């Protein structure tokens, strides 16, 4: 009889185990890992073609700094949807911003906005996937203004520089019209004003600065060339492919960056406009009144005084990363005269970012990597 009760007890326990099987599975399969919950996606931009998709990951960073992937245990919600995504992927056929958040146990993640474009500019195919030898360009920023009587002298110097075959392919040029708060200057912009303050140019015009440094020269062409010589590189640390097009009232800029050297990178896109007519003080030739490469908008600015670009993250050699910028067009700007300067910045040992390379992409066109 004692044996019978042993069997009975065993069966009862077995039955109880069978009956609570589901609940026990929950306890075992949902590990409670305290920490900071992070929702990330393979990209924060996508095409709204119903085919393109992003995949989400939910992770927990514990107190030790270890990162645990808890995607399968988390619920990912599209904003205002009552039910979570059935799988951690998202695709859509409607453009717009989509806000997501994730819940893991009783913890909430960051909010993540995925922007879907129905008109994303197509990037050109990479003609040399295995190549990481990119030509290098410096960014020259001309701090100028239409009421600055000495500024035509810088225009003259830059014209001569552009006509010098030994230098014309070593840089891209931005004209930042900020003199006297844009007084009587149709090429003035708030972006230029902020750039001028970041570069501390309020006192002296014309001035030419180099990349994002505060190194500056006046109009002396030999000094300008000397600075370019000091900054030029035989090979760039990154290559940049870009495509830009008008979409509604915006200019969409699709950028892809390929690293030649492992580092932390950021990217920014500046809208420039050519052919702005504004009477130039001190002009001696009619072309002085027509202003090219005038900075209109600085996308990717970190703050009012920091233009180092949006994070691309750490890229290893040959690794690519992308970013799409949407630049709002002012009604006075002529899209057909616009181009986008894309620059990538990289960090030095002190986490200071400066331009690693830049390209110029006319609106409505695309540029691929500039291989050596």
């Amino acid at each position, binding site marked *: 009889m004692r044996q019978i009760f042993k069997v009975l007890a065993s069966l009862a326990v077995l039955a109880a185990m069978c009956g609570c099987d589901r609940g026990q599975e929950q306890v075992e399969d949902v590990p409670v890992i305290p920490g900071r919950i992070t929702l990330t996606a393979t990209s924060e931009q996508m095409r709204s073609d119903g085919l393109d998709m992003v995949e989400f990951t939910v992770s927990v960073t514990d107190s030790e700094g270890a990162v645990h992937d808890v995607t399968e245990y988390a619920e990912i919600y599209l904003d205002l949807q009552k039910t979570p995504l059935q799988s951690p992927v998202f695709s859509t056929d409607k453009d717009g911003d989509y806000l997501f958040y994730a819940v893991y146990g009783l913890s909430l993640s960051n909010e993540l906005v995925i922007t879907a474009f129905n008109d994303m500019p197509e990037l050109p195919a990479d003609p040399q996937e295995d190549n990481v030898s990119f030509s290098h360009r410096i960014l020259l920023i001309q701090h100028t203004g239409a009421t600055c009587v000495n500024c035509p002298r810088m225009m003259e110097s830059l014209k001569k520089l552009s006509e010098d075959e030994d230098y014309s392919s070593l840089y891209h040029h931005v004209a930042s019209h900020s003199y006297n708060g844009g007084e009587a200057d149709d090429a003035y912009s708030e972006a230029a004003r902020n750039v001028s303050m970041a570069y501390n140019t309020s006192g002296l015009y014309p001035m030419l600065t180099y990349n994002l440094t505060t190194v500056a020269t006046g109009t002396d062409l030999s000094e300008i060339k000397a600075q370019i010589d000091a900054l030029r590189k035989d090979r760039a640390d990154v290559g940049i492919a870009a495509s830009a097009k008008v979409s509604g009232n915006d200019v969409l800029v699709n950028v892809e960056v390929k690293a030649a050297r492992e580092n932390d990178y950021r990217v920014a896109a500046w809208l420039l406009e050519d052919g702005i007519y504004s009477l130039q003080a001190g002009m001696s030739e009619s072309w002085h*009144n027509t202003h090219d490469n005038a900075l209109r908008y600085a996308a990717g600015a970190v703050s009012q005084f920091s233009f180092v670009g949006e994070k691309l993250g750490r890229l290893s050699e040959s690794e690519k990363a992308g970013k799409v910028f949407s630049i709002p067009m002012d009604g006075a700007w002529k899209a057909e005269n616009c181009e986008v300067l894309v620059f990538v910045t990289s960090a030095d040992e002190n986490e200071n970012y400066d331009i690693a390379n830049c390209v110029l992409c006319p609106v409505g066109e695309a540029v691929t990597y500039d291989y050596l």
Partner: protein
Amino acid sequence: MKKIFSYILAFVCAAAAVSCVEEEIRQESQMNLSETEIVLGPEGGEHKIVYELIGVAENAAVNISNDASWLEVSTARARLIEVSAEKNDTGAERKAEFTVACPGVEDVVVSVSQKAWQDPVTLTILGTEATKVMFSVKTVDDDFTWVGQVVGKEWFDEMESDEAIFQEDLSYYSYQAADQGVSLQDYLKTVLNKGSFEYLEYKGLDPSSEYVVYVYGITPEGERTTDIYSAPAVTQPPYEGPITFDIKVTEENNVMDITVTPDHDGVYYYWNLMDRATYEQYAAEHGDDPVAVFQAYVDWYIQDLIDYEYLTSRAEYFEWYSDINQVNSQFECMALTDYIVFACKWDGDCRFTGEAAYVWHTSGDVAPSDNVITVTVGDDVDQSSFFVDVQTTNNDPYVMIAEPSRFMAGMDDEEIYAHLMEDYGTWGILNFVYEGSLSGRMTGLDPDTEYTMVVFGYKAGRQTTPMQKFTVRTAPAGPAEDCRFEFILNEAGSNSLNITVSPTDAAHYYYWYVYPMETTADEVKDDVRRLIDEGYYGDMYEFSYYELSQGKSTGKISFLAPETEYKVAAVVMDEETGEFLADVIFSGPFSTLEADYADITVTASYDKFYDGDDLYDINPDAGAQYRGYAMVPVTITIDGEYESYYYTMIDYVTGLENPEVYPDAMLYETLVYYGVYYAETVNFRAPWNKTVLLAAMAIDKDGRYSRVFRQKCQFKKYNASDIEDLFTRSSAMTGGVDIPYALPESEIKVEKDRRTGDSRCSTDNLMKIRKENRIRRF
């Protein structure tokens, strides 16, 4: 046995069933919230609570019961209860509870609290005086960084928003940073305030004026962290009662340091000083009341300025010379002299209105100088000058002055010194004070006159070395018509002659210049008369000063033709009337060297020209100067290394385009004096239907001239191009556009700098305008 197994099976099933029922009951009854007590920030905001429902029906939803009007609770987003509130400006902490309910589970009560908002910075005006505002700044956080400004209320009221004010401030800070040569961030670090200040004051304001004090949080990186907190402040009217002054005078090395401190700031007052002699002079006339003496002195001074048209009214003087706060000033004084420094309240008509404060100060003596002054007077004394060489052993100042000896006849050294000081005064004598060694000719003397040159150390009205005297007699003058000239060619170039002209009688003033060999005496005189009339508009003083010589004269005459003979003409003239006192005397021929043209080819050209009337129609301002004329954009092209270039249009005369008829040398001067030299393209204003010559030249680094480019031109109105062609990009030329307007004279100043360095523009003007309406940071 079967029965037993049936029991066992039933028991097992029952046990299993009981177990499952109990688990389901436990799950259905569960609603978990991530938090049930939340604290919202005083500034307001949102807080999210995550909830989970276990075992409830799929369509079950949570409901919120919330009676607190200040609290918003939303369950619009799945798994989230969003709690939000505005800034708590009730002045006290507030608390509330809301209930989260869901069918089948127990309600959960969530408590919410929000402390009262406290401004991160509190600005309090403590008071104002006539010229200052006192205030305190209290910050909640001791590490809170902020900046503040005192600005005119009018300026502040014009600003549309906090951000507009902040951006104006940033522009100001950027300007200051640039001025100091530091980055904006580095500059901000030097001006940021940190934490609380119980007492701050800003001085130098105008009385009875409206100001606004404002402060805001800002990071060293230049990011604004708070709203702008402001408070109005009105300075007090000037103190109306009597005021006193504290006047302090110190002296070092014969420089008085004067500080005048009124006991009430903001009261308009005047201060000045005078020596005892001046004071007593006025006192003798206006009595012993110092205020009356000071008033008389100021009245005289004002009237003197008005008489000389430096002033138009007393009110102007009041505006310029009023002080309202402490002043500090330095004055270079005479040795051993009594000075009275005075200050007195006054009104807008420069009338003193109160008691004057004053102090007497006796300046110190000047030590004798150990400077050894060795003077050598040369033997080559002519009718108007003599040579003098002075060697000194240090740079102590000394006086050197020559006067006809008769002025000092019978005087000993002391009397001569007194005579000079009386004649020239302490100010006038400064024109004859020198320092260090020198040599040269003492000029401008009268002929046949004995001069005594005195040399002595001098400082602060004191003679510091013994006086040295030298006597020189100038040669007698002969008749003007007997004056002859020696002409020496120092150096000849292909386009210039360097000549020295030495008259036999240095008493006379004379004119000299280089002329073509065929020039007659009458033509020279005509040329001189034309120069007086057209070059100096008949002003003989100016003409004599710049054109006439006395004694030996050396000069270089340029723009001459190469390999050509010239002669120098000299003629004695009356320096006051311009009358020719003698015949024109010519030198022998001097020849320029053979042509050595610069290896430069210059071309000036235009491909279109425009009707100035068309420009005027589009833009009257830009086109006004071209009305009735052709506007011709001319570009100069230069092949070869050049130092400078010149081009212009000249009225055409027959043969002007031919170098055989009009050599290049005849055009060089016109081109250099009147040509465009600063821009490779300018718009010329040319007459219609009239032939002109377009001419251009360049000069190389060795000073050699190029050949002159010449092109005859004539502009017919019917050939003028469409004005729209002026613009390189027609797409940008809609509406009332401006027109390129460059005329030679409009750009001279700017472009001239091109050859001398790297000129820059600054935003000084703009900043000055801005600063006029505001006050510096504190």
